[in-house]
Every structure is written in structure tokens, then in C-alpha cells.
């Protein structure tokens, strides 16, 4: 077997960006898009400061998070470990972009010329319309490797068969080769030097290694890089707010969760009281609206049917399938007033809700999303919102008021459960650590899932037992805090992983020093 990998010798890298430029030329990436780049790191406090240059890009992981999440199978992994993107299959949902903890993927939605306006001759010559609106990233220059192999060349040895970044490196800091070949340069370098991989703790198995000290490889794992909440001048390496999913994606989580919860509440209530079909219609409409908004966000919307290609692994595919069943049984339930159909729709709605939670959980690139506690929290918020909206709708429809009072204990229990899920989620996030600004976003504002707002909701709902007029207020507040939370989670707390260095390298005869994980803290 073959497993291609890059080894970067941090003792040698000078941050010249020749690899960055070579990659841009070899792959004709658009202005501002860098499949390969070299970050400028500093660790320590004056006068004890170390500075190092860290090449980054797609790590061609052993277990690539982008591969699992891709709903269309556009992202694949070759037998030799190279992770590829099929531009014809990709719908541009950017799920892979938020799943990648190395910020390696980008999507360009419009042609961009280096100097604005008209493209220069070389830009026009090499323009690739297939890349517009879809995910793109480093390919390890797979074309060069394949060309080389087909022509008797050895990747990693022959420049024409080696990734452009490696071939261009003026310091011989970058090396490419086959990890499964014990005689390859990369195998020898790893055997003879201490090394780390970025974000090793995430378990992605990157195919990109960083040498930080000469001498035999140490099998003892490195301690995690120290978190530094607000390091000076490391904005480019610190977590950034993801821009792939905006308010349209947030609406999908808000409306989808509420709709699924509402249908479940309506269906269950329908077992004990007349079926409140207008609420069911609202539920279907909410889920549909959420999906419509997220459809507006994808880069190649008319390829949306491709989303059904990856049921084996992608939670986005499963969400789409659950949505189909939800709409089918839901519509049938409303039309035929069939409890079996309601209940089936409710069940698929809950599956839909679970899929939404798992979509976030699988987004390994966003620390605030990938927490295990996000799953019960998203489900709890969906249920609270659904029941709360049901209660509000019930107040205004037919025999609803008594029905609303009937669901009051359920709502109180769910709000309490949601608060418990929030505490669990927030506690774990705080212990594990996350981007500083993610904490700031989650903890900011009045309408949060934190104790004051939730206690106020519970108080209002408790008072509603004796003064029903407070029910709507309590339910509305429960609804609002859930929506605000999800909007915050998707658009304000969704800071990506950023970059980290486990050890600052030894330079020449110098010593290595502690690394840094900039922009992170425990809280």
C-alpha cells in the first residue's frame, strides 16, 4: 500500500511563502485562496519569545472529517490517502468546510480577478468554471503524482511527480513521500526526528507531520499545546468565526428544530385531544422553510438532488431523507387525519431533529458544535421550542387553551431538561477549552440558556398554573431563548479550530520550547 504524506521540518522553514506562491501558480487558485500557506507563530512573552513558521493546508487525514460529512460523495479518499473533491458532484453546501479542523477548504462563489475587473491573460487562460460554488482545497497535486507514477517517476524524489509546494521549497523544509515505504525520505525523517501532527487530539490522523527536534522519534505523546487566550499578533493563527454557514443555516436549525418539535407535540397531543392540524401545518412549513433557506446558501443549488448520495455516513444526507419521510407522513397525516401517519411523521421529525444535532456534532472544525453535549442540547431545544409553540398556537386555536394548560407540565419538564443539557454542554466545553470568542458569544446577552432567563421562564410557566395568561409569555420566552441560542451557536459562537503548535522547534543547536494554541481558553 501507499500512504502519501508531507513532512515539514520546522527547524528549516523560514516562512518565505515560496510554497504558497508555487501552489497558487501550479493550481491557479483565485486571489485570496491559498491551499498551502505558512503561518507566522510566536510563543512566549518578551524577552523569552520563540517564533516559528508553520506550513498548513489540507492534511489528507487518515480519518477525514470532511469525508464523513459530505452528503454527495464528492469528497473521497483514494487508496493512497489523498483526499479528493469531485467538482461535478459537489453541491457547495460547505459542510466539509466547517467539518475540517484545519480550515483547509474554501468555496469561491464568483470569479475574482487579481486586480479587479478584467482577468489578466494568465488568469483567463487557467480559469476553471467547475471550481465556482464548490468546495476546493489542496489535492497534494494528485495530478503530478499520477503523471509521475505513469511515467516511471518517483513522487517525493522527482520534482515533476511531487507536489508543487514541496518541489519549490528553497530551504528543503518540505518533504513528500510514502509513509508505507520504510525507505522513503519521509519515513526516515520521522524515524530520526521528534515530531507532532496538528490537533492530534482530534483523532483525524493527519498526513502532515511537523519535525520539531532532531533525534530519535519519541513515542511518548506530547502534552497538548498551552492555550493562550489573547496572544499578541496571532490573529491569523487564532480561531476565526466561520463564514461558510450564515443566518440561512441558522434558520434551518431554528425552524427545523422548532418544526420537528412542534409536529411531535401536535401528534402526541392528538392522541389525547382533537388533532390540532393547523399546528401540524405550521410544523411542516417551518421545516420546509428551514430547508429552503439552507438551499439558498449552497453554492450549486440546482445540484441539490446529489445530497441523497451518501446515506452511509453523512448526517446531512440522513437529514434530507428524514425530511422527505417527515413531509410525506406529515402531509398524509394532515390530509387523512390518520394517527398512524401523524405518529410516523412525528417519529421522522424527531429523526430529522436528531440528524440536525448530529450534523453539528460531526462538524469537527467548530469546537462549539462538536461537543458531545450538543446532541441532547439541540434535541432539547427543538422539543422545548416545539412544545412552546404548540402551547402558544393552542391558546389561540379552538379548544386549545385547555390543551395548552395540559402541556404545561411537559413544557416545564422540557425547559428544565434543556437547562440541564445546556449546563452539561457548557460545562464540558469549558473544561475541554474552546475559542475565547465562542465563550464570549455563548455567554453574552439576556436571552441565553443561562440560569436567569431559564428561571424566569420556569417562574412564568409556574405562575401560569394559576394565571394562564402567563403561559404564552413563558412559552414565548422559552421559544425566544432557544432560537437566540441556535442563532448564536451558528452565526456567532461558531469559531473554527484555529491552528496550534505542540512544540516550537529547536533551531540549529538551539532548544525547542513550549508550543501555543492561540485564542483558546478553558472557562
Amino acid at each position: 500500500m501507499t500512504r502519501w504524506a508531507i513532512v515539514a521540518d520546522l527547524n528549516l522553514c523560514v516562512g518565505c511563502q515560496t510554497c504558497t506562491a508555487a501552489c497558487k501558480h501550479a493550481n491557479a487558485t483565485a486571489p485570496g485562496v491559498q491551499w498551502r500557506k505558512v503561518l507566522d507563530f510566536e510563543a512566549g512573552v518578551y524577552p523569552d519569545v520563540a517564533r516559528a513558521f508553520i506550513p498548513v493546508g489540507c492534511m489528507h487525514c487518515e480519518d477525514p472529517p470532511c469525508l464523513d460529512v459530505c452528503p454527495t460523495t464528492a469528497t473521497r479518499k483514494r487508496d493512497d490517502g489523498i483526499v479528493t473533491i469531485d467538482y461535478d458532484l459537489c453541491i457547495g453546501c460547505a459542510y466539509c468546510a466547517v467539518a475540517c479542523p484545519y480550515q483547509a477548504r474554501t468555496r469561491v462563489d464568483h470569479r475574482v480577478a487579481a486586480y479587479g475587473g478584467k482577468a489578466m491573460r494568465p488568469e483567463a487562460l487557467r480559469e476553471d468554471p467547475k471550481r465556482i460554488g464548490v468546495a476546493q482545497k489542496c489535492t497534494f497535486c494528485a495530478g503530478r503524482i499520477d503523471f509521475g507514477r505513469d511515467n516511471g517517476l518517483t513522487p517525493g524524489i522527482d520534482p515533476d511527480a511531487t507536489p508543487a509546494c514541496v518541489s519549490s521549497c528553497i530551504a528543503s523544509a518540505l518533504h513528500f513521500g510514502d509513509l508505507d515505504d520504510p525507505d522513503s525520505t519521509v519515513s526516515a525523517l520521522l524515524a530520526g526526528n521528534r515530531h507532532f501532527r496538528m490537533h492530534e487530539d482530534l483523532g483525524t490522523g493527519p498526513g502532515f507531520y511537523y519535525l520539531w527536534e532532531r533525534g530519535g522519534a519519541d513515542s511518548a505523546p506530547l502534552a497538548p499545546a498551552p492555550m493562550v487566550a489573547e496572544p499578541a499578533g496571532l490573529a491569523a493563527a487564532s480561531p476565526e468565526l466561520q463564514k461558510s454557514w450564515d443566518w440561512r443555516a441558522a434558520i434551518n436549525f431554528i425552524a427545523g428544530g422548532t418544526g420537528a418539535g412542534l409536529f411531535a407535540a401536535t401528534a402526541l397531543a392528538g392522541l389525547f385531544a382533537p388533532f390540532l392540524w393547523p399546528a401540524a401545518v405550521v410544523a411542516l412549513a417551518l421545516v420546509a422553510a428551514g430547508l429552503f433557506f439552507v438551499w439558498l446558501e449552497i453554492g450549486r443549488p440546482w445540484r441539490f438532488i446529489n445530497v441523497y448520495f451518501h446515506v452511509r455516513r453523512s448526517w446531512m444526507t440522513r437529514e434530507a431523507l428524514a425530511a422527505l419521510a417527515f413531509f410525506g407522513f406529515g402531509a398524509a397525516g394532515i390530509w387523512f387525519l390518520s394517527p398512524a401517519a401523524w405518529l410516523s411523521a412525528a417519529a421522522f421529525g424527531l429523526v430529522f431533529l436528531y440528524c440536525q444535532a448530529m450534523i453539528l456534532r460531526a462538524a469537527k472544525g467548530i469546537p462549539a458544535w462538536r461537543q458531545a453535549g450538543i446532541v441532547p442540547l439541540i434535541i432539547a431545544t427543538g422539543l422545548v421550542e416545539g412544545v412552546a409553540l404548540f402551547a402558544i398556537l393552542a391558546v389561540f386555536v379552538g379548544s386549545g387553551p385547555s390543551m395548552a394548560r395540559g402541556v404545561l407540565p411537559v413544557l416545564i419538564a422540557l425547559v428544565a431538561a434543556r437547562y440541564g443539557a445546556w449546563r452539561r454542554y457548557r460545562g464540558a466545553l469549558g473544561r475541554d477549552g474552546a475559542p475565547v470568542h465562542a465563550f464570549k458569544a455563548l455567554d453574552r446577552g439576556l436571552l441565553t440558556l443561562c440560569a436567569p432567563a431559564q428561571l424566569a421562564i420556569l417562574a412564568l410557566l409556574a405562575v401560569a398554573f394559576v394565571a394562564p395568561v402567563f403561559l404564552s409569555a413563558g412559552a414565548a420566552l422559552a421559544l425566544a431563548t432557544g432560537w437566540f441560542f441556535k442563532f448564536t451557536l451558528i452565526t456567532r459562537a461558531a469559531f473554527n479550530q484555529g491552528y496550534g503548535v505542540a512544540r516550537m522547534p529547536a533551531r540549529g543547536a538551539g532548544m525547542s520550547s513550549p508550543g501555543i494554541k492561540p485564542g483558546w481558553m478553558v472557562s
Partner: protein
Amino acid sequence: MWHRAFTVSPDTPLTELIISFGANVEASGGVCGVKRHADARARGVRRIQVEPHLSVTGACSAQWVPIRPKTDPAFLFAMVHVALHEADRSALDIAFLKARTSSPYLVAPNGFYLRDKKTGKPLVWDLIAKKAVPFDRPRIDPALEGAFEVSGRETGPDDEFWDHRNATCRPAFDHLLTHMCTYTPEWAAAICDVPADTIRSVATRFLDHAHIGETIEIDGVTLPFRPVAISLGKTVNNGWGGYECCWARTLLACLVGGLEVPGGTLGTTVRLNRPADNRWSSVTPGPDGFMHYPMNPTAKGEWMASPASRHAHQTLVPLAANSPWSQALGPTHLAWMMQKQGLDHLPEPTPPDVWFVYRTNPAISFWDTGAVSDVMADFPFTVCFAYTHDETNHTADILLPECTDLEGLQLIRIGGSKYVEQFWNHQGFALRDPATKPQGEARDFTWIATQLARRTGLLEAYNAAINKGAAGVRLFGEGYDFSLRTDKEHGIEDIWDAVCRAASAEITDGADTQGLDYFREHGFRTRAFSVLQWYLYPALVEQGLRFELPYQERLLRIGRELGARLHEQGITWWDDQLKEYEPLPRWQDLPGKWERALSQHFDVSIADYPFWLLTARSMQYAWGANAGLQMIHEVADNIAGHGGIIMNPAAAQKLGLAEGDVVEVSSPLGKTEGAIVLRQGIRPDTLLMIGQFDHWVTPFAKDLKAPSMNALTPMLLGLSDATGSGADLVKVALRRIGPSP
């Protein structure tokens, strides 16, 4: 001694320890420099970077020592002190000092060498015969230390002499010992803001790594092996303090016998001592057993009272020498300054009748760019080779659109050891063949040059110059002659075909004469270049020559003579510079010198300008001619500080400044604006602006709005040293304009 930074290099392939004072070789050494130093790091070289900010080179070094700006001589003096007064004598290369330096020369009471009356040769004290003898007498053991009663003649400036009888004289080395006695690490610590222990440990490492007594065999020749070197950066060895640094840097190499030997400090190229193509041939005997050096004359009747160049380099700077390259080493800024205001007792300055500008943009890449632009706007006729609209060609009368390097044809010499970090085992020629068609109306340089020659009636002289080697290769030699007919206009390929043929002949000693087609097929052609030729030491030994260190009598003499000549002319404005002509330089308060010059010239309180502003070379922008390329800007942005003002976070906090805040940086001369970039790797009293770009016309670059120190750095006589050089250094104030945009 005249080894300035741009020609001096550690023997990077062999050295073990490099102490680099602000030499940003990773950014300025080109591809070759990066590769050499990466290879050196891979084999475990220890580089200690002494500089106020943690540059790219500092990042790649084993240790960073943050030093207060312009105090490097104090650090170096303290290193010399440790070597002379704290280390055992066995830590020094005594044999080298005795045989290859001026250390044993006896110094007479007036500061000049004591000489043999008959021969005029400097005397040394022979420990075997216990008497003074000429330095070059065989089988002697000259004393380095002690005081001796001796007789002889002391020759001063302008042939003045004193005959001494039984005068007490000490060897130059003994004078050095006394001179460096007070320059302790503790003394330097207070000046440099670096702990004395750090200075002492750096000095000790230097001595420990020198491997005194060890040898290495290269191409069958046994040479000393001294794998320690010291590098100086541009701002360190330019302007006031440059002399002290160059002296101490080279002296330290001499103390351990590490000058021009494997592993040590090398000069790499020939700029002044001709011939330029062979370092060994450039070594010829000069006076007093030293290498010849073509100083500009200072003796009465020989001194050039009326300058032949606009910056008067032959008149003011004997050390700039008298060679085709010398003009570039003179006080360039005086040429610009004098266009506005002539200096007393020098001829009235005149603008050039025709000014050619080739691949340079001084309107944005000089000190006080506003003043420079004003001057060039008044030039009567300017011709610019042009690649884009820029700030200098903005006022040109004629633009000559020239091919870029990817579009033009040229044969280039490669290999050898010419220039810093060029350590090759081969030398020869490479063809730069057009990779793409020219854009627009751009023409190959050769075509433009030929047309200029033809249309100005200079075709014959032009062709003759090419025949003599103006295109890099002489077209005739023993057994071959590819000379062009001088009365005819030749095409681009015809010219380069002749050059290629001559190159083939030169490199094969006439055996082959293939032309352009051969180079087009093979790309380059080389032959072996002996590693031995990287070092001057064999040539010095062969001729029995010495380096004039530690004591520089010649400098003392020409300084006195120059002073006399200038004063005879009524010129007193160069008096401060004349004080630099010392045989053993003393520490002078360099930061204070800057502060005084600024406060006196601009009548300001220097306390209002609390920060030192420095610049650093950008690897991506190199000399800055590519600032108009979007791709370069994009990739350069990955390195911190481009386009901003780098500042220490603690210093910023004291002023209430945060990352990204837009500030105005002002010097007594001018102002610039930019965003704060916080980095721990900079001293709290220092600010840094990477690159120096003041573009206001160049497309794309003009929109970058990057701060530049050019408009802040004045051209002042008071900030020009005796060699006429100044430094990219100024004191500034900071004022917050607004938050991050």
C-alpha cells in the same frame, strides 16, 4: 577592514557558530542564503541573533538577544574584552596574530608605527633576538605584549616624521589590551540593555567554538579551521557606529585566526581591489606588509579638491577607494542634499543633463522621499526604463518599456563565491531565455541599448564595449575571437550568440565555442571551482601578507591628511566625521548622537519622540519593486507586520493601544500612518515597519497604504559617518488616530 555587510558572509557551509548583529540573511540572502543557512541548521549550527526585534532570521536562530538599537559596538567591544582580559591567551590564535595581523607592530609615541630608518618598514620586538627588527625578518618571534626601549623613525601624515631614540614603545596588541580594558560586559550591559552574563556567554561561546589549532584539508591544502563568524546587518554597519562594528567584527575574527579561513568570516567578492573576477588575483602587496587597498589619495597635491562625482566620494571618503564600484559606496544622500543646498567650499552642484533610471525607484526608496522627489522633478531630462507607472518615472521625459526577466535574453555568470552565501563548487554561465512573449510594447534591453547607441551615434563605441566584455564576457581571448563588427547594428540574438560562444570558449579554455543554440538546449555550462578559492588565506600566505588589525595606522594617517586638506580648503563641516579616523575606535554614545542630531537640526525636544523606529527587509517584497503584484501582497500578508507597525504589547498597553488601532507615527521630519501589529518579539522601546514603501502612483501598491519610515528619516550631515553612510533609524512619537478599520 572595509568588509561591509553586503560582501561579508560567514563560511556558512562549514561554520559552527554565527553571531549575527541584525543581519537578516534569511530575508536578504536570497534563495541561496536561505538554502545555505537551512543546511547549516540541519547540521546543527548555532546562530545567535542580536537585534532589537525578532526578525525572520532571529526566528530561525538558536537564540535571540534583544539589544537596544545602535548599541551593537558596545556588545562587540565587550566580547573583545572577554577575549583579551577574561579568557586564557590560549583561547586566541597567537600564531595568526603574529604572522597575519599588525598586532606585533610597535607603536611610537605619536600613534604611528615605529619604523626602521633605512627601509621604512614597521618594527616588531623579536623575543628571540631581544631587539627591534623589521616585521618581515624571517625566523623571529615577535612580541605581542610588553613595553620596549627602541629607536627608529615614526612617520606621520604628509611625510612628517619623528626620529626616536630609546623611546618606550609597545606592540599594537598591547595597545589594544589597554584600549579594551574598561569595556567589560558589565559596562556594555547598561548600554545595550542586555544582561552581562548573556554578553559573556556569547563571547565565551565564540572562543569555545573557534577550535584554535585545528586544521582542515581542502583540495589537498591544509588550512586553519575556525568555525566561528560574526555578521552585521545593514542598520548596524551603516551610519555612525558602523566603523566600530566592522572593526570589532573583523578584529574578533583575527583574534581567533578566523578571517578568510574555512569556517570563519569571509569577504566573498571583489568590489574595489581589481580584478573583480578572481579574489586571489585581487590580493597584491601593499605598504607595510598589508594587502594593497586603493584608497583615494589624501596627500598634498594628490587629493581631489574638486569632486568628480556629485556626492564627492573621492574627495570626502578615502576608504571608498577609486574604482568603478566606488561611487556606489560614497555618501549617496549628499548628492541629493547638495542639489537643494550646496556645501560650503565645494563646487556649486549641477543637475545631470540627462538622467537615466534603470530598475530603481528612488522616489519611494530613499530617506526623506519628499525631498528626493522634489529634486528629481527639477532634473531637465529624465529617461526611465519602465515596467509599470511608478513614482520616479512619473516625472520622466521618456519611458522605455523594457522586458521583464521572464521576457528578455541574457547570459549570466553563475557559481563561484561571488557575493554573500554564494559558495559553489562550480562556476560558469546560465542562459536566461525568454519564457514568454513581451507584453505590450516592451522591448529587450539589448535592443533598447543598441538603438540608443545607434541613434546617438555611439554604435561603434557601444559595439567595442561589448567586445571588451560589457555584456559580461570578453568576446575574444587566446585562440578565439567572436568580436562584433563595430560599424554595424547587431540583432539581439546575434549579440548573445557571440557572447555565448565567447563564454563557451572561456570556460573550456578555447576547446568549445558553441553559441546560443547550445545554451538554449542545455541551459547552463560550468566547470569546477575549487573550494580553496572561497578563502583569501592561501593567497595571503603565499605573498606573506597581513590584515591591518587591530591597529590601523593607515586610517589614522589618511584621517589626519584628509583633515588638513579639508581645512586648507576652508571646509569644517566634515570635522565630526574626521574624528572617526582612529587606529583603535572608542565607544561613543551612538543613541545620544542620533538624538542630539535630530533635536539640534529640528529644534525639538527628543523626549517627545520616545521610540526608536527601525525597518526590516521583507523576504516577499525583497527590494520592493514587486509591491504592485497582487500575488506577492497576498502571500506576504501571511507574515506578521506587513503593512503595519510592529509594537511590543506591554508598550502598547501603557499607551492604551490595542491590536489594529490606527496610529500616526511622527518623527521630527514627517509623519506616516498605519495599524498597530502587536508582537512579543520586539523591544518595548522599538517600533518596526517592514519594507519601505511610499508608493503613490504605482498601480495596486499605491492602494496598500502601508506605513513607511522613508518620509520620517532625514538626510542629515550630522547623521552621516566618515564613510558617508547613514542608517535606517529615527526616533518617533506615536498618536492614536482611531480604532481598527
